[in-house]
């Protein structure tokens, strides 16, 4: 309570002491009622006070009291609803009765009493005198009573500190309780009791709770920190220690609360965040909504201190044309690059600005990437937090993504709209292009509340430019006819602003406004006058007729501001209206005494100006006006008159100044700049209270400026102790089991990535390795990611697809064929709506690579160089081996990022089995007793299905020396034909032998089954063994999770099949194929086309020729080739002139649904892939996979 309030209370206290001397209870509350409060809401309560139960027991009470009385009865009925004591309720209970009830042995009575007390508190009544009776019950066994006692304690403990101490021991006991919830609630209440004497106890409790086993208790500890801090700020240092400890916590439950504590206690200790930065970014998506908001806001500030301004180079251009350049380059990489180059030149040429080309810190990128999905949150606060983060931190080209989400929020409650519109208004000044596509979303409905209307108008005005101004003005015309006059006035001002900002429409607007002068509504006219005045100031010469017109209006318009504006106009441009001006002054002189003050001042002004220009006609009038003003009631007017008289009427005393009177009065005045009130509001962090109020709110943390040079990024590196290194991989798996939400999404992204992502990454790494020089790689990655996000935007506007192809140009795939292919791409890419989305992912993948430490990056660069070389070689000799290789590499890298471990990516592990030794690769399988001859019909001899991709099940580090890989052997699993055969290869690279390898505890989705392999008793060190197991995936790509056990350890692992492995080949003739296709298409009850998915594709450069296509398709999916009508397919490729069709057939393993694939290739490299399958999901995924493999 500030001294001001304190002072204010003095007299009230005094008065009350007289009035209700005996009413000790009421005193405290009444003391808080200020004198200045209007009668409105307070009245009721104020009067009600004397009617406190003990006085009004027999229902006297006058005036407002009666109502209060009734209300209370009603309330109490509710409070005790359903109890057996309802009969008592009609008469309010005395506190004595309540005490009695609290002292009784019956829990039900206690509960009843507590309920009434809580109801009293809820109504703002004082119940503090019951404290002794209540506090006794703190140890009550009944949990309901206990809860209510807690509520009471938290409310009154501060006032009755001594008595409150009685309860402390109960909580101390509670802190040791084996039940985590009791521990948590004890800590919660203990820390909420604001009694200074127990600070040491609280400190101790918090410290202990911070290392509690239960995350829930740790969360409570985090909540308790600010409570203690506000009670005793001297504890800060100790508390910071606790915060530091809790920040290192890895549970999502704790993260939000501890960051909140950090923000409250020590927001300046940004150094505490370094080590936890990456963890926070990664956890963010799973933190609860409120924690997300706090974390995002904190990270925004953090990023501002630790990273470089991503728009550094553009800031040179920002002035003037900057914005244009930005919009022009929207989603256009070519230009983007140009500009980048220009920027570089600019930066280099004048050596004044010595700037290195900007390279985004991978951690900066990490933050942007991990916050983006949260734009889809249902919580407006989260969306806003992400939006402000992007606005303040993202490169200009990427900020656009937030617009859509913000526009979505406009559908929400009007309060949300209000806040969002304020922020949009600020953003739309800086980044107009961002919201332009959503112009119509800001159109105003007559049912919007006025404050929303005005804000929408503000946004519309900010968005106006040459191209859309006509639309906006037409919209404004409708608004002018609205019934809401405040809104009409705002619209007129908006028109004025549009007119000043956009020269082309100035005359149109002016004409429109002049027409409004004849409006019947005075407010409208007045507002128009004011705006016209401002507009005329820009080019007065051309508009003397308007000034004349307005001069006539003085007879009718009564609104002071408008009258004043007209008078000022006439005075200012009296040369343009030499005849009318004196007449106006004459009229005004008549009414002078009845005018408002601002009008009077303008009359004096007008008189002075006329006196200076046309003294002959107006000398007397001016004298008269000045005399009237001399005796005016308002001192401003008297002063002004005195001042002006001295200035314009030359006398002996007047001195030198009057010589300059003309210069003083008739100086050219600069035209006013009509500015948005939201201009430059963005120096406040968006989304903050301070931004909304446009004034610093208490406790507002200034958003720091970007640093000049980047602080050391290595502070964020976390040294991973050995044990973490080993188990991190495992941990991830474990998480997968216990928390499907989190890891599922991670696991999912791998196999479902579509064609482009892989190709992008490939080309990207190629280019990265080709370019030499420092930083080129990461720059590349930056560029890549930028284009990624741009492509994201393109998802919204697909018409820009063409540019995207251009954007790909810099990627050095400079074959001569390329150009012709591109032609094809341009036309065809429109049919690939998925592209955008998957591209982003590829960008992200790329980023995650760069995240690993510096040295590793180099290494990976080398690797990629090596790999690409290999790849190139490979692609010449055996094209289909490429895709698996890339995938493997990527897997490796992702892992290495997580492990922060620079192990050898071991190309030998991921070595693709060469094309020709299919037999040898399946040799192991054969040995297991599954012979090829089992499936005579399956034309393995025709199918070049050699490439078995191996996947890692367990890495040797995670597996403590045991590494496990698996591949889909594509053999029928003889024990159960509905299962997919999975070949598992164990390699023991540890020093000792592994024993009892077996599977345990399979966690399978419903319907899935698994046939385990027989236990391997021993696996000597350095040996390798293969086994086969069968899994029925139920025709879904859901992973099969199980534990892989050795005699010592258990590992959580999962096998997730690519869609292509869920099927097995069947033999079919072309005619059969066609027939089946037909039937599928016309299957009853299904819509046409449901079972058919067709996509167009441009074949990758290495993928020309029949053979390559066949190979690739069969690699992607376990299908068999359908021989073409003749036996042509045996002879070397003689492509059929029009368009060769390749057909493949198979059926899903579990349900036996047909899967028919046909690929039609055209000679320009284009192709069309058609998949027919009853299972839509399988069809869709298969198409994607095939597309992916074909485009490489």
């Amino acid at each position, binding site marked *: 309570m500030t001294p001001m309030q304190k002072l204010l209370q003095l007299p009230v206290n005094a008065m009350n002491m007289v009035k209700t001397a005996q009413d000790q209870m009421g005193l405290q509350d009444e003391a808080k009622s200020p004198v200045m409060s209007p009668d409105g809401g307070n009245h009721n*309560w104020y009067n009600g006070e004397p009617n406190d139960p003990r006085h009004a027991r027999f229902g006297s009470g006058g005036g407002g009291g009666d109502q209060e009385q009734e209300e209370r009865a009603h309330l109490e009925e509710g409070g005790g609803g359903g109890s057996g004591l309802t009969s008592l309720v009609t008469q309010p209970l005395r506190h004595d009765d309540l005490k009695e009830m609290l002292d009784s042995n019956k829990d039900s009575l206690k509960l009843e009493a507590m309920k009434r007390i809580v109801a009293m508190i809820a109504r703002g009544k004082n119940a503090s005198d019951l404290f002794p009776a209540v506090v006794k019950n703190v140890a009550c066994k009944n949990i309901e009573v206990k809860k209510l006692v807690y509520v009471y304690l938290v409310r009154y403990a501060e006032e009755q500190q001594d008595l409150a101490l009685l309860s402390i021991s109960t909580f101390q006991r509670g802190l040791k309780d084996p039940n985590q919830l009791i521990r948590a609630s004890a800590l919660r209440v203990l820390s909420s009791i604001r009694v200074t004497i127990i600070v040491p106890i609280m400190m101790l409790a918090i410290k202990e709770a911070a290392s509690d086993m239960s995350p829930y208790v740790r969360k409570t500890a985090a909540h308790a920190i*600010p409570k203690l801090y506000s009670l005793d700020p001297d504890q800060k240092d100790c508390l910071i220690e606790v915060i530091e400890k809790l920040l290192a916590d890895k549970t999502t439950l704790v993260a939000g609360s501890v960051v909140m504590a950090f923000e409250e206690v020590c927001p300046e200790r940004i150094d505490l965040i370094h080590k936890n930065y990456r963890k926070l970014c990664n956890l963010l998506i799973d933190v609860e909504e409120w924690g997300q908001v706090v974390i995002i806001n904190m990270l925004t500030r953090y990023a501002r201190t630790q990273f470089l301004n991503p728009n550094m180079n553009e800031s040179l251009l920002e002035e003037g044309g900057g914005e244009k350049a930005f919009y022009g380059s929207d989603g256009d990489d070519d230009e983007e690059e140009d500009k980048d180059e220009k920027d570089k030149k600019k930066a280099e040429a004048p050596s004044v600005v010595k700037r290195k080309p900007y390279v985004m810190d991978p951690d900066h990128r990490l933050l942007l990437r991990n916050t983006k999905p949260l734009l889809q949150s249902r919580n*407006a606060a989260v969306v806003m937090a992400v939006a402000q983060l992007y606005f303040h931190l993202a490169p200009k080209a990427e900020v656009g993504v937030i617009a859509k989400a913000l526009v979505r929020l406009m559908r929400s409650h009007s309060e949300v709209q209000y806040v969002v519109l304020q922020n949009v208004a600020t953003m739309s000044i800086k980044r107009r292009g961002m919201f332009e596509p959503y112009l119509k979303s800001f159109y105003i409905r007559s049912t919007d509340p006025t404050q929303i209307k005005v804000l929408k108008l503000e946004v519309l005005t900010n968005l106006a430019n040459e191209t859309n101004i006509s639309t906006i003005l037409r919209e404004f015309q409708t608004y002018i006819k609205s019934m809401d006059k405040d809104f009409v006035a705002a619209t007129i001002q908006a028109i004025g602003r549009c007119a000043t900002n956009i020269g082309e429409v100035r005359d149109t607007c002016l004409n429109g406004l002049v027409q409004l002068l004849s409006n019947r509504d005075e407010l409208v006219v007045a507002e128009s006058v004011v705006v016209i005045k401002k507009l005329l100031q820009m080019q007065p010469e051309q508009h003397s007729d308007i000034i004349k017109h307005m001069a006539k209006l003085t007879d009718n318009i009564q609104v002071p501001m408008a009258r004043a504006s007209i008078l000022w106009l006439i005075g200012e441009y009296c040369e343009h209206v030499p005849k009318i001006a004196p007449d106006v002054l004459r009229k005004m002189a008549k009414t002078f005494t009845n005018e408002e003050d601002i009008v009077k001042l303008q009359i004096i002004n007008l008189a002075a100006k006329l006196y200076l220009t046309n003294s002959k006609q107006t000398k007397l009038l001016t004298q008269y006006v000045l005399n009237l003003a001399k005796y005016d009631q308002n001192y401003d007017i008297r002063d002004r008159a005195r001042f002006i008289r001295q200035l314009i009427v030359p006398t002996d005393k007047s001195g030198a100044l009057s010589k300059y009177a003309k210069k003083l009065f008739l100086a050219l005045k600069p035209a006013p700049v009509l500015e948005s009130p939201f201009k430059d509001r963005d120096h406040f962090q968006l989304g903050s209270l301070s931004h909304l109020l446009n004034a610093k709110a208490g406790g507002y943390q200034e958003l720091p400026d970007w640093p000049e040079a980047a602080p050391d990024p290595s502070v964020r590196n976390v040294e991973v102790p050995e044990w973490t290194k080993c188990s991190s991989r495992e941990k991830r798996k474990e998480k997968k089991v216990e928390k499907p939400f989190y890891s599922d999404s991670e696991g999912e992204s791998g196999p479902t990535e579509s064609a482009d992502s892989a190709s992008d990454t490939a080309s990207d790494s190629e280019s990265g390795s080709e370019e030499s020089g420092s930083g080129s790689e990461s720059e590349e990655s930056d560029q890549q990611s930028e284009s990624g996000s741009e492509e994201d935007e393109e998802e919204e506007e697909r018409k820009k697809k063409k540019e995207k192809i251009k954007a790909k140009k810099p990627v050095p795939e400079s074959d001569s064929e390329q150009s012709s292919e591109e032609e094809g791409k341009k036309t065809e890419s429109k049919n690939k709506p998925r592209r955008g989305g998957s591209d982003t992912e590829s960008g992200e993948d790329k980023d995650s690579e760069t995240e690993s430490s510096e040295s590793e990056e180099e290494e990976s660069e080398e690797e990629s160089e090596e790999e690409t070389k290999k790849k190139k070689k490979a692609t010449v000799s055996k094209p289909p081996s490429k895709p698996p290789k890339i995938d493997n590499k990527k897997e490796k890298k992702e892992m290495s990022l997580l492990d922060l471990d620079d192990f050898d990516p071991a190309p030998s592990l991921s070595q693709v089995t060469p094309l020709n030794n299919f037999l040898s690769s399946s040799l192991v399988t054969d040995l297991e007793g599954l012979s090829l001859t089992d499936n005579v019909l399956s034309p393995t001899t025709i199918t070049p299905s050699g490439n078995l991709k191996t996947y890692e099940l367990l890495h040797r580090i995670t597996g403590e020396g045991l590494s496990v890989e698996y591949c889909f052997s594509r053999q029928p699993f003889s024990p159960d034909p509905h299962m997919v055969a999975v070949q598992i290869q164990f390699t023991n690279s540890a020093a000792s032998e592994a024993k009892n390898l077996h599977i345990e505890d399979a966690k399978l*989705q419903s319907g899935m089954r698994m046939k385990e392999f027989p236990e391997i008793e021993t696996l000597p060190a350095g040996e390798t063994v293969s086994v086969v197991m069968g899994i029925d995936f139920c025709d879904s790509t859901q992973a099969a999770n199980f534990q892989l056990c050795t005699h010592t350890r258990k590992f959580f692992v999962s096998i997730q099949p690519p869609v292509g492995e869920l099927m097995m080949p069947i033999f079919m003739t072309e005619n059969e194929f066609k027939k089946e296709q037909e039937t599928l298409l016309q299957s009853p009850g299904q819509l046409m086309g449901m079972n058919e998915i067709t996509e167009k594709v441009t074949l990758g450069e290495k993928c020309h020729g029949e053979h390559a296509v066949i190979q690739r398709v069969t690699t992607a999916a376990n299908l068999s080739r359908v021989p073409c009508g003749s036996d042509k397919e045996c002879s070397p490729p003689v492509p059929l002139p029009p368009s060769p069709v390749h057909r493949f057939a198979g059926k899903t393993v579990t349900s036996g649904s047909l899967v028919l694939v046909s690929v039609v290739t055209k000679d320009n490299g284009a192709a069309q892939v058609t998949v027919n399958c009853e299972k839509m999901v399988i069809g869709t995924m298969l198409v994607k996979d095939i597309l992916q493999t074909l485009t490489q």
Partner: protein
Amino acid sequence: MSHEAVRVDPDMEYLTPGVVDLEQMFWTGLGATYTHCNQVWPNLYIGDKKTALEKPGLVEMGVTHIINAAEGTWNNVSTEMIHSLFLVNPSGDIFLEKHWKSVVSRSVCDYFLEAREKALDPEDVPPVISTPHHYLISIYRDKLFFLSVIQTEVPPLFVIEFLHRVAEMIQDYFGECSETVIKDNVVMVYELLEEMLDNGFPLATESNVLKEMIRPPTILRSVVNTLTGSSNVGDKLPTGQLSTIPWRRAGVKYTNNEAYFDVVEEIDAILDRTGTTVFAEIQGVVEACVKLSGMPDLTLSFMNPRLLDDVSFHPCVRYKRWESERVLSFIPPDGNFTLMTYHVNAQNLVAIPVYVKHSINFFESGSGGRLDLTVGPKQTMGKTVEGVLVTVHMPKTVLSVSLNATQGSYTYDNATKVLVWDIGKLNPQKLPNLRGSLSLQTGAPKPEENPSLNIDLKIQQLAISGLKVNRLDMFGEKYKPFKGVKYITKAGKFQVRM
């Protein structure tokens, strides 16, 4: 301190007023407005906390030392987000207050009540009001104001969103959110608030978690409670907070396992006077009512997910999965919840289900006018349009109307100047028509402004965007659930300009 006026500085004529005078001033008020800081002596300032916290300002004034003379409990450091909550009814009475730390006097609401009186419409009350010591952030919902008192910087949306969550929770628990209901269940509401916010920071806002701690009232339970004398506070300790899935309570059991999904689409549109669409979009929401035992993992897929332009999800939905496959994969909360909201953009050409032929004329004399309205179906995809309701906000000068409706009935509220025409089902053979005369205030000029029409309608079994749910799969549990999908189209903010 002396009670008499004293001359402090012998060189000056100024007399410091005595206590009596000061008191008198406080009683009557000086009419001076509050300022954060006053110079009371050369180089001596008295200011409030706000001033003391702003370093640059202090430097500017040349302040070198600060003496803290404040008294009270929250003058040191305030560290909570939401300090207090007041519930205010339409007539301005505060009927519930809850403080999370020390008590803030009710008088703080006066600033709010003042603003409320100033505003013509409750919707026009600014959501954020700044007072000398506090900031008031309020929402208006179900005819009630939820008013929170804030002391320090906090994202306003954070508070607004939280207040709405409180209102939703009350609605969820008691079926409606009204003054009577809250008063009837005041203790439970209080307990809910206690759980939802700890030290001003949201703690448990998920309905599933809260319901485990405080069981919602049911008729059966209230009968049982009467007999046994127990209340609605959970007997068992909650476990929800501890499960890995914060939004779903553990150990759910149903005999009938059901999952229902309602796809509700609202058409937002502005049509101009010629009937051309100025702006149209579809806002859709998938409401779910899932009553499934155990921990089901559901996957909902759409036939045509590309339709959806912008989506937002309940936290349970796996975002990555949506990104890559466009399916909704989630472990649902128990009971009712909003699974997703989506947006179908104007570019996809929104079908407008009805058209309105309208004419409104006011006679030049200004004594009256004519109104003629006809509503007919336009693009209804062969379904019947039901529940058609036309609302016209008439100009202020319209005194009364005398109309004739061929179908349905109309009412005209003279106080709010709102004409409501309840048509009901739209019959394409016989289009409903409303015509008649309007009488204006005598002497008033002919109104210049144009009223606008708001239309309400409902179409069952149709999602106007054409969105279709393909299938719902359940994993993780063995039983076969009963599944159902319902479509409904409504008019959202559907406005016709006249």
